[in-house]
């Protein structure tokens, strides 16, 4: 299992005076240092609104969690703080200055309330001179190694979030019985896609209609699928269906497709504690050979 990273941007958690408390625009180096110290102080105070103020209105963060816009960032900050993240240590590597934009690279280690490292991200941030302050405009973060103790904490609920998911069409293969059939089921689907000349629009995924805790293995009901263009048709045993949009609780984790150590109970408990009701089957999206997104529909 690789990593679950609850942060959407790195510079995310770094600085103190809110940009709102403007001071004269300084050089990029000074402006970034000023913002970073302000973000760190805001994180230590648990002030998600102040943290979000260090981003441009239309900031975009790309990484284990991707966000667009200051409001989305503020909501995510509140979740991160609620998870127990309270501090960050930064290792700034480089600053490339410019008149209106500056780029920064570095590493950020995020710490819980006990001061223990939860995860480390390598980041490149594009800062924008915005009025009287330098604010984060774009950020790409790449997770780096997380130790096993941190992974255990993450699996206990530190990596979960809620977002809107888009509707999509998918070709599905309904299955019953052992989960050990995953490889064969996906291979059948892939073969069908190739024979039908249908280009999948995304990675394969699985949906789980019950669980080993509820029924004997022989009665397990699940299905695998690939996103496909609307209008695709298929014959039994394959089915083309629309997967509806809506709120989902989710986590991105590492590990193989057939991993058995998914923190589904923790994800469900995390959502219920936040007054969400589970409203759909569990779903795993196998983004790559080493990364899985866990997703479950919720409502309030």
């Amino acid at each position, binding site marked *: 299992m690789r990593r679950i990273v609850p942060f959407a941007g790195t510079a995310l958690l770094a600085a103190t005076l809110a940009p709102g408390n403007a001071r004269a625009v300084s050089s990029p180096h000074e402006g970034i240092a000023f913002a970073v110290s302000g973000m760190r102080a805001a994180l230590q105070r648990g002030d998600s609104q102040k943290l979000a103020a260090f981003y441009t209105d239309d900031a*975009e963060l*790309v*990484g*284990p969690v*991707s966000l667009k816009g200051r409001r989305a960032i503020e909501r995510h900050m509140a979740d991160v703080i609620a998870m127990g993240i309270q501090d960050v240590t930064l290792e700034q590597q*480089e600053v*490339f*200055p*410019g*008149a*209106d*934009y*500056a*780029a920064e*690279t570095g590493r950020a280690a995020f710490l819980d309330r006990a001061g223990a490292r939860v995860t480390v991200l*390598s*980041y*490149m941030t*594009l800062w924008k001179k915005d009025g009287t302050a330098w604010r984060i405009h*774009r950020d*790409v*973060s*790449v997770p*780096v190694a997380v130790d096993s103790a941190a992974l255990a904490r993450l699996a206990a609920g530190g990596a979960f979030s809620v977002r809107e998911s888009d509707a999509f069409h998918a070709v599905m293969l309904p299955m019953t019985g052992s989960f050990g059939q995953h490889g064969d089921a996906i291979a059948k689907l892939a073969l069908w896609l190739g024979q039908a000349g249908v*280009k*999948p629009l995304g*990675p394969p995924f699985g949906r789980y209609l019950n669980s080993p805790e509820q029924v004997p293995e022989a009665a397990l009901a699940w299905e695998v699928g690939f996103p496909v263009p609307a209008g695709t048709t298929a014959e039994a045993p394959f089915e083309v269906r629309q997967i509806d949009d809506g709120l989902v609780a989710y986590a991105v984790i590492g590990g193989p497709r057939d991993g058995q150590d998914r923190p589904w109970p923790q994800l469900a408990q995390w959502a219920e504690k936040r007054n969400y009701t589970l409203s759909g089957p569990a779903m795993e999206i196998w*983004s*790559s050979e*080493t*990364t899985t997104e866990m997703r479950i529909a919720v409502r309030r």
Partner: protein
Amino acid sequence: MASGSSTPDLESARGLLRAREREFAGALARADVDALAGLYTADARVSGPVGPMAVGRDGVRSLLQHLVDSGVERVEFQEEELFAVGELVCERGTARLLRASGTTVVVTRHMTLWKHEDGTWRIHRDWAAQ
């Protein structure tokens, strides 16, 4: 642009960057790792979704060799936006890596700093998230 110390003109840089990406795609199709590595600056740094950061052209060459060895033969770039950062160009976009069969191996979103060096634009810093 424009080498030198002036701020790059993004419109003219855009066409040159696309040409460099076409060179990248061609070299990848040929599995020509030296040509791929030549698209980077001598002190480039690349941080991707897998493995440690690649530092310097030799480090980048090793990363690209791994990419080629894993069966990736095609890439489709999609630019989303360009920014001028001093003498550099910052590009945000996506890259879809594919096998020869057309199977997508991975899609990344990246932020790349392009630097004009030795008479052409080269990748100087590249961070890519899955």
